[in-house]
């Protein structure tokens, strides 16, 4: 009864054992150079019916491609979010049983998206050379490091005039700001301010400046040492607009010697006999 099915089964077996038709795909002859990653690419080939997936492998990531087959042609296009990283690239066309690899090259970008100007140090001080290192490098749309005249970055050393100021590596970009600050105080003088009776007496500094005439930064700390027979008392104060003021305590036992110390520098002693 079943013998009549044997030829049919044999036929099915024979059909399933037929050789796989090789997938043959090449770039379309329109390309003198390489296809452009972000634009539609055209491939030519035979036996294209079974194509299931097409992938682009850039030098960093891989990505599925949209594709459409028409007779002996495949039109492929990268998706909007594909990163076209420069370097060796491959298109891989896949069927159930076969994969065809098509190598090509994605050239370096030439469109500058970001220019990074890396400055060191960010804060300069007039005590030192006021010299700054700048390394500039440029980045393209797909995070490509773009070539410069020599190498892939440009290194420059800038020498600034020792003037207290805020500058910017790139105009209009506050993130690139750097600072030249006043250095150590050159000349410290103190005087006793002794207004009318029964009012607060205090010691005041001169206008505190560095060697180049820059007023020291607000908030610079100074210590006033007051020495009498009974010992030494230290008062602290912070500069405001280059001036320091030290209110004198009423308990002070005269006579005293006082001097002001800022960093490694100090004033000449001031002798106070009476208030």
């Amino acid at each position, binding site marked *: 009864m079943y013998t009549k099915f044997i030829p049919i089964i044999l036929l099915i077996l024979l059909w399933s054992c037929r050789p796989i038709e090789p997938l043959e795909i*090449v770039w379309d002859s329109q390309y003198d150079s390489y296809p452009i990653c972000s634009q539609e690419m055209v491939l030519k080939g035979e036996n294209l019916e079974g194509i299931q997936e097409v992938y682009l492998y850039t030098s*960093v*990531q891989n990505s599925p491609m949209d594709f459409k087959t028409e007779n002996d042609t495949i039109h492929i296009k990268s998706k909007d979010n594909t990163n076209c990283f420069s370097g060796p690239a491959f298109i891989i066309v896949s069927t159930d049983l076969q994969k065809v690899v098509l*190598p090509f090259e994605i050239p370096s970008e030439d469109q500058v998206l970001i220019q990074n100007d890396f400055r060191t140090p960010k804060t300069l001080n007039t005590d030192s050379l006021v010299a700054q290192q700048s390394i500039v490098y440029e980045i393209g749309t797909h995070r490509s490091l773009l070539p410069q005249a020599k190498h*892939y*970055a440009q290194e420059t050393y800038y020498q600034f005039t020792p003037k207290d100021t805020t500058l910017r590596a790139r105009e209009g970009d506050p993130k690139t700001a750097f600072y030249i600050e006043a250095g150590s105080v050159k000349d410290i003088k103190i005087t006793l301010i002794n207004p009318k009776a029964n009012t607060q007496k205090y010691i005041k500094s001169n206008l505190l400046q560095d060697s180049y005439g820059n007023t020291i930064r607000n908030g610079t700390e100074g210590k006033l040492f007051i020495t009498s027979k009974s010992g030494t008392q230290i008062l602290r104060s912070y500069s405001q607009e280059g001036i320091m003021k030290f209110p004198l305590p009423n308990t002070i036992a005269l006579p005293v010697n006082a001097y002001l110390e800022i960093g490694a520098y100090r004033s000449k002693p001031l002798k106070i006999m009476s208030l």
Partner: protein
Amino acid sequence: MKFLYTFLTSLLVAIAVSKIIANSEKSELPSYIINDDIALNHHTKINFDIQSQVKPSPVGQEQLLNDYKNIWAHLNHLYTTNEVSAGKKYYTEEFFDALCRQFQKSPQWVQRHDREHHLILTHYSRNGLLAILHDSLVILEYDFPNQQKRIEKVEVAIALIYQGEHWRLDALNIKPIKRIKKL
């Protein structure tokens, strides 16, 4: 009444346990605790030369080279798998953002190995936070489906920024040394 009390208590315990489990799945350990197996299992050969005016200390050189190797380990892993987050501690925020534009799962058809590097440090910032490197000859080996293999010689330029205890990739440029033949 007793039954209702038992039921409500069990319900509250079940909710609390499920919350704890859900939170523990979301939490991520700090990167210094996690073993970086991708970097540990990566081996390559690097010849290193310094041409920059400012030179890193010997300890600084060692860290730069180690991180450079690890960056390649993660770039190869990314190449095959598209897993952008595996090497995120080796990318700057901007580079990571660019990678995250494309994160579809990969069929993992191709594996890449970096066999050899000839690395030159061309620029190094005085504060040790920026390095520009030129890898003048990198030998890349590709394993394609159906046991096909291919070797490419490329040159690579790379900008690294030191952030959060690692050198991180900020930008790179890969260029074949010989023009690739179209098939």
